[in-house]
């Protein structure tokens, strides 16, 4: 079909078509609706619309119940009956359970004082060990044998005796020197810069080419060798040769057997020596074991086991230098605080794992 001729938009017809009649239509719709439902509700007062239902309508309740889902017999059987005791999955011994209950009761008796009174009494203002007689103390495992406060050697006194001071000083110096030597003897760190000129792109190209040509030559050589090997392999084995091989093999096994027999007889001859050897070995093993045990105990006395990523590093000993000793408390030089000492002690005893503090 052909296109409809487009009419002019400037005419009256076009105007009429564009006028919307929605509001009028809406009004009509509403009025008809109202007429059907019996008057609009918006104008009515609240009293006429709502009222308080004071009657007890049982019927509604019944209705609701009726609508509720029925409990199936299967489910009702499974529901808990208060008159029937549950069968435990595993029987526990009656005595123990009573004891446990008692313990729990006791604990409850013992502990609640503090939390209950917490709101009233400030912490620390009551005797929490008032009824300690009833509580059994559990065996608490200690992290290490190192005491919490280690008293320093007599040489670390502020006014030490000469000999003990020399000794402590020597120890401190040894510690320092050990660090120095470790630094010196350890592997050199990787340098940040390498001396020499940078390689140009062109040069690099040439280098690569050289390498490549070398590789080609190698490949050729290998292939030639392979050819030769193959030619050897294809040689035929004659009957004579096979026989010869069998004979040689036979002879070898015989010889080996004879040797074995001889060896055994020899060993029987020197049995006491072997027994002694075994005993010796045993003793050595035992000794090694003891040595290890001792070494481990010694190690645990001075340092904790490896507990984490970082290794424990003991703090250096605090000793006065020889020229710093003057016998006066007033002139005592201030050392670093005990904060570090305490922290190291905690690490040393294995209560916390060694941490790496932030570095500047």
């Amino acid at each position, binding site marked *: 079909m052909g296109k409809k001729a487009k009419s002019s938009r400037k005419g009256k017809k076009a105007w009429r078509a564009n006028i919307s009649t929605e509001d009028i239509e809406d009004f009509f719709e509403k009025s008809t609706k109202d007429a059907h439902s019996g008057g609009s509700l918006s104008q009515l007062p609240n009293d006429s619309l709502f009222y308080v239902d004071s009657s007890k309508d049982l019927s509604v309740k019944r209705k609701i119940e009726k609508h509720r889902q029925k409990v199936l017999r299967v489910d009702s059987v499974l529901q808990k009956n208060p008159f029937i005791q549950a069968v435990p999955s595993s029987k526990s011994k009656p005595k123990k359970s009573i004891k446990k209950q008692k313990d729990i009761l006791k604990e409850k008796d*013992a*502990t609640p004082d*503090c939390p209950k009174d*917490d709101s009233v009494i400030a*912490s*620390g*203002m009551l*005797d*929490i*060990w008032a009824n*300690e007689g009833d509580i*059994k*103390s559990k065996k*608490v495992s200690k992290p290490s044998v190192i*005491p*919490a*406060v280690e*008293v*320093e*050697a*007599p040489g*670390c*006194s*502020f*006014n*030490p*005796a*000469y*000999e003990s001071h*020399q000794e402590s000083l020597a120890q401190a110096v040894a510690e320092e020197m050990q660090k120095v030597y470790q630094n010196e003897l350890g592997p050199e760190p990787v340098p940040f810069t390498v001396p020499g000129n940078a390689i140009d792109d062109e040069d690099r190209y040439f280098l690569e080419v050289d390498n490549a040509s070398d590789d080609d030559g190698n490949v050729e050589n290998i292939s030639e060798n392979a050819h030769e090997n193959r030619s050897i392999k294809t040689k035929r084995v004659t009957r004579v040769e096979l026989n010869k091989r069998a004979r040689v093999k036979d002879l070898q096994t015989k010889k080996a057997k004879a040797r074995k027999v001889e060896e055994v007889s020899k060993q029987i001859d020197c049995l006491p020596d072997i027994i002694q050897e075994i005993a010796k070995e045993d003793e050595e093993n035992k000794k090694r*074991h003891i040595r290890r*045990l*001792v070494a481990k*105990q*010694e190690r645990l006395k001075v340092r904790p086991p*490896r*507990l*984490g990523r970082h290794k424990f590093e003991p703090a250096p000993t*605090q*000793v*006065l230098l020889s020229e710093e000793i003057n*016998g006066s*408390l*007033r002139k*005592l030089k*201030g*050392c*670093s*605080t*005990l*904060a*570090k000492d*305490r*922290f*190291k*002690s905690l690490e040393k005893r*294995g209560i916390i*794992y060694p941490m790496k*503090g*932030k570095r500047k």
Partner: protein
Amino acid sequence: MPKHYRPAGKKKEGNAARYSTRSQALKLLQVNTKLFRKLCIYKGIFPREPKKKFKGNHHTYYHLKDVSFLRHDPILEELRAKSTYLKKVTKAKAKKNRELADSLLKRQPEIKLDRLVIERYPHFIDAIRDLDDPLTMVHLFAALPATDRMKIEVKRVHNCRKLSHEWQAYIARTHKLRKVFISVKGIYYQAEVEGQKITWLTPHGLQQVLPDDDVVYDVLLTFLEFYETLLAFVNFKLYHSINVKYPPILDPKLEASAAELYALSRYFDANSRNSDQVEETQLEESELRLAQLQHQLPSNEAGALMQLVKGAADENEEDEGTKECKNFFKNMKFFLSREVPRESLLFVIPAFGGLVSWEGEGAPFNEADQSITHQIVDRPTQGHIYLSREYVQPQWVFDCVNARIILPTEAYLVGRVPPPHLSPFIDNEEEGYVPDYAETIKRLKAAAKNEILPMPGAGVEDLDDPQTLLAEGYISRTEAIEAAERKQKMMTLEKQYHDELKIELQVTQSSAFDTNKQSPGEDMEAREETLPDIQQIANDTANMSKVLMSRKKRGLYEAMKKGQEKKKAHVDLLKERKKKIDEGKKSKKN
């Protein structure tokens, strides 16, 4: 197939089942690292070293039991709640709502550790046994400066100060201090409470610099939190054991002049007198009255009052050590100069029964008091000198206390380099090496035991020389006694040896009776033969006891032996060195 392949349904076994790494524990507990660390510290849980580290050497391992122990503790929930609360604060801060942040911080929920204290220390004695670390930590933080950067609050520093002073006051009051050692690091004290030896370390009263690099202050502060609670409970119990009300009410004037220790001792005195006089009346009321009274009391009278009360104080159930310590500095009055470390001396001198005063406000008596017997100074020269008293360096007090004998003051006079300060924590006998000064002290002690002390009424000035003379006399006498004893010992040893030889001979004679008759030459041979035999027997018996020991014990025994040998070698070395030094000195003199 990997080395440790485990079929899908199979349970874990061995170390992998018994231990968990820290990250596993974090996942299990649903906490972050910081919170976990805190929890562990509160509950006293520490990392372990499993025999086989299933995740490698660079992990930290915990007992799975410990982790589940943490999981069931209510403190975990509290800590979580607190961390969420703190999130609110950070949010308020981020929104620049200063007021809200401040008010939130003020209303922060406080976490009580009381339950944990009793859980970890079900008996009082357990708490006492573990008091070393708490005391040291509290004393340390009492001396630290409060800084914002390290989150060390002023309130906590004050609390630490209070707790440490309370503890010191108790120890001083009950005379339980035993040893003091001043090292470069700080001052070590040892007290004996309830039969337990408690050692703690206090910093010197110098300026405290906080090391920045190696110390994680969060951890220390968490420890401190627990220790503060513990020490408060311990102090409470201890104070009540001597019938003193615990949160002590202090004289604000003394507190202001930083003499809390003295204030506490006065509080003790007041309290004990109080309990004597008015037990029936309401305690609190009288307490208040007393506190008011103390305000009005002039400081001069207090000293005399203290003495009066001390005489009347309960002297029941005290062991010998305490009695000795109580009467050690009796009838002595000390005065501390300005430059002397006041805190430690104010603690030590009253702990050994002395009276002490200092230069400053609130002191019980002033410098001009005629009854002062010792003035403690630490300066090169003393300007004005009272003839009635002796001027000594502070080290004298500590040395006297350690030696349990009033040492002659000559070596400790003003301006002199005092004799070495020896460590009382070293048992010289066990170590094998005895320094010179320790020997002289020992001799003096022996002398004092044998002889009656010189008359205390004699003039102090001319007492010095006769004292030293007497001391020398005692020394020579004790030397003679020692020599005699040594001789006697040698004699007995020799006698024993002879007896043993005789018995052995008899045995051999009876066994080889027939051969004995035949020829004397053979008899000689037999004797020679038996001698090594006996040695072997001795060896065998030693070996037998060794064999009977369990493997672990044997290892320990061997370790002990090695240690002894090492010690001996060390002592020998020291002696040799000393000899060399002496020789060097002699040659120099010549």
